[in-house]
């Protein structure tokens, strides 16, 4: 028989109807296995600098000598300022900058989230390149308090020294902005939002002043995190932070430049994600990969650099780690060399990758090698959905168990021709029944709209009641699917259509999310994978097992488990507060994906399982 005839013969074959769950399982296994294969040498590459203009480490850095004395003086000044109240401190920093010849300004900001207010003032100055045309700018950041809430004495002092040092050179083709925000997360966010707008109208959660002083288009930003105290402390390696908000990453060239300069020109080891020792074994690479996936999927700020990346300004944070023999002048020379390289650029960094996963400071996985993992996971949902759609069009007579009574009914037969062969089949097996779409579609729409309620609860409640809100959501999540299943009686076909539509939507949303934030799509895809396998069943044992597996992998339980495993000391309230701050202040989409995409799909899965109980009771 011809191939087309063979394929047509498969149309009624029961094998195809049973295949989708196995295909979905295969997709999930392939997705997981794909990630585990990535740390191998065959699937990753050495990093390299793509932009020829950068010429990393080619310049001789003159930062040293008497600049060291100036740095020590500034460090004592910064320590003295840290003892004073905030106004005096800001005035002090402004004076230091103004004395170095910079144009200075400050910007107050205030965020109100979950009943807490986050206030601060950003202080900044601009070094105008004497021969520059003022159309572009680079930023040197040193937050007053670093991400762990320690005062960034040496970082701020180094930034002030470098500002004074840079203002004496005439080689700059771009302006240099020195920014000293109050904290590492909200200060830079307020500053960069104000930089890219004329004015930001105050809302109930945000009040950011406009910037009185601006320079040209921002090209790149480097942040320094060096919390050593007034007498200094040498460090052993540099940790480079590169995650931006919502999983956006800076151009890999900026990282490669920094790593090449630090480890090549200066001899400082570079690490990622706080992995102080990295033996380049499979295990260490997998560990860095997993850390990268975790920070990217959460999408929250990891340092002062994070706020810049959504504005297409490549930014990294250099954080000093450990106790070694590199001192502040090495860090200063690294920074000077990085700024000289950025200075060479004629356009935004665009040659290298924007989507990558780093295995160590010198090894990365490019997007073509890792993206299929998330796509295949989304494919598992789509495969099940298509199988369910086809099944929903089949007639009940084929699905009902063959009872003795069936033989007595007159079954209408029909001849089916394929090439030269003929067969006699029951007529109802080749017809499709009409699908009742209205109730399933309405239910799906309703559940997705309901998803905004947990989202509102998790982002708008006060700090004290956030945990209560989560408990309430958990309770509702357990009750809602069962109550929906009992009030809305679904036929077998309707339940299959409902699940099919929900899984198609989930698969489409996860596939789209994978192009924007790969790690979040991967994590949600893994956590939601049982949804592709639950089915309406009249056996109470199977229904109970399915209900248990759904309950274990539900969004609220995931939040509890996340807190217990990763932040056991912080407590549930603190974690929920950080998540709420992420949504309201930083604009992170994580909560919407959890409550607006995953939770409705989970509820629909529960409704389908619950409808099995109802059908058995009939």
């Amino acid at each position, binding site marked *: 028989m011809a191939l087309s005839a063979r394929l047509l013969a498969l149309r009624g074959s029961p094998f195809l109807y049973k295949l989708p769950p196995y295909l979905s399982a295969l997709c999930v296994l392939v997705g997981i296995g794909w990630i585990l294969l990535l740390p191998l040498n065959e699937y990753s590459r050495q990093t390299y600098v793509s932009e020829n203009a950068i010429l990393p480490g080619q310049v001789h850095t003159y930062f040293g000598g008497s600049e060291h004395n100036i740095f020590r003086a500034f460090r004592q000044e910064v320590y003295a300022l840290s003892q004073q109240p905030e106004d005096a401190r800001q005035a002090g920093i402004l004076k230091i900058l103004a004395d170095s010849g910079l144009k200075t300004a400050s910007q107050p900001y205030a965020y109100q989230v979950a009943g807490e207010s986050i206030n601060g003032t950003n202080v900044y100055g601009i070094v105008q390149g004497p021969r520059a045309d003022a159309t572009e700018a680079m930023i040197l950041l040193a937050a007053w308090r670093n991400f762990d809430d320690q005062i960034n004495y040496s970082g701020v002092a180094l930034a002030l020294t470098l500002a004074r040092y840079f203002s004496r050179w005439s080689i700059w083709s771009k302006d240099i902005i020195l920014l000293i925000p109050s904290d590492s997360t909200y200060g830079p966010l307020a500053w960069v939002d104000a930089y890219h707008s004329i004015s930001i109208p105050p809302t109930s959660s945000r009040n950011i002043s406009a910037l009185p002083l601006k320079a040209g288009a921002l090209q790149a930003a480097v942040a320094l995190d060096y919390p050593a105290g007034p007498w200094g402390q040498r460090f052993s390696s540099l940790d480079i932070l590169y995650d931006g908000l919502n999983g956006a990453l800076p151009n890999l060239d900026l990282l490669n430049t920094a790593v090449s300069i630090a480890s090549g020109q200066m001899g400082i080891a570079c690490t990622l994600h706080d992995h102080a020792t990295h033996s380049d074994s499979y295990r260490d690479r997998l560990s860095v990969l997993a850390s990268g996936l975790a920070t990217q999927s959460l999408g929250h700020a990891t340092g002062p650099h994070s706020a810049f990346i959504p504005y297409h300004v490549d930014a990294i944070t250099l954080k000093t780690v450990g106790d070694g023999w590199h001192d502040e002048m090495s860090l200063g020379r690294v920074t000077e060399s990085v700024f000289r390289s950025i200075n060479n650029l004629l356009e935004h960094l665009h040659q290298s990758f924007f989507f990558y996963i780093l295995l160590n400071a010198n090894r990365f996985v490019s997007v073509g090698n890792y993206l299929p993992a998330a796509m295949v996971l989304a494919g598992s949902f789509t495969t099940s959905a298509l199988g369910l759609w086809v099944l929903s069009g089949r007639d009940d007579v084929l699905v009902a168990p063959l009872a003795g009574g069936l033989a007595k009914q007159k079954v209408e037969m029909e001849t089916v021709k394929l090439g030269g062969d003929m067969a006699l089949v029951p007529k109802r097996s080749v017809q499709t029944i009409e699908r009742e779409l209205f109730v399933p579609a309405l239910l799906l729409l309703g559940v997705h709209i309901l998803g905004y309620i947990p989202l509102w609860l998790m982002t708008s409640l006060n700090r004290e009641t956030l945990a209560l809100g989560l408990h309430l959501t958990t309770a509702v999540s357990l009750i809602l699917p069962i109550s929906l299943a009992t009030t809305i009686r679904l036929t077998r076909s309707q339940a299959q259509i409902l699940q099919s539509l929900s899984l198609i939507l989930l698969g*489409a949303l996860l596939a789209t999310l994978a192009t924007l934030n790969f790690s979040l799509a991967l994590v949600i895809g893994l956590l939601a994978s049982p949804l592709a396998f639950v089915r309406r069943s009249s056996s109470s044992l199977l229904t109970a097992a399915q209900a248990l597996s759904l309950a274990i992998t539900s969004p609220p339980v995931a939040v509890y488990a996340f807190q217990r495993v990763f932040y056991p000391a912080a407590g549930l309230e603190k974690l929920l507060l950080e998540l709420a701050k992420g949504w309201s202040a930083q604009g992170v989409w994580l909560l919407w994906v959890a409550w607006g995409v995953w939770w409705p799909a989970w509820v629909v899965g529960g409704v389908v399982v619950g409808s099995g109980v109802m059908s058995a009771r009939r």
Partner: protein
Amino acid sequence: MATALGRPTTAFTTFFTLLSIRHATEGKLQTSAFALAIASYLSLHPTLLLPPIGLLGYDQLCKSRKPVNDTDGPKSPMRYASTQTDRPKVLDFGTRFFGCFLLTAALLLALSRVLLPSFAFLPSVYLTLLRVPDLTPNPGLWWYFFIEMFDPFRSFFLGVFWLHMLSYSVPFCLRMRKQPLAAVVSMLGITAIFQPYANVGEAGAWLSCLTLLSHTFEVSSTHRYTFPAVAVLLYTSLLGPAFHHLWLYAGSGNANFFYATTLVWNLALLIILTDTVYSVLRDEWEAERPEGKGKDVRQI
């Protein structure tokens, strides 16, 4: 809903187009021409609906006109004016319809001229629609071509693209003269897909108008590709904004990602359109040949 978010003025065009169709189905040719003229005055492309809506109005007039020699009274089997003598004259109808359209359009343009300082609005409104100088990315097919085109060839391609779109109007009327409403809806689909400044609102309005042809939904073995086409529409309406953001805001994609998604969006709409045309023609064919009901088509 997407149209409400975008707040385009095509909402008015769609409103007047639908008003025109509605009056045509009631046989009121003057009001139909009037509404169509307003729609064409706002965006130029409803002019393409003149033949189908004219045909629809004429068809409805024929149906509503009683026969002249109605001696049998209400029990007469001849409900419609089916003989040549009973029908309204085609030329008469056409002149009145077209004339009403032109008169309204002239009136509106004159009103614009009175309100505005000069005739400069004519090139700035209508020539921008015809010459397509604004190539802001939209879900249409034109902007990408015209961005990369060399100037000497621009007029040629402009002519080709417009000729392609114009060439559907009359053939739809000829082929679907027994179901003029189907011709109207199909033409709406053609303009939604192929117009230079395509937008989601017109595509959405056309998809809603498909329910006007709901009598074809019951015809079995038609609408074969609804599920894949709708699934593709879902995927592209999610990926389109994602790639637009990645291209223009995140700076990490390029125009090709977005345009490819747009192409797939239009492909899905086109599949729905061809499926609809197939179902309309199949419905006609099955009315003539009832023994063919339910049989699959084969390409020979």
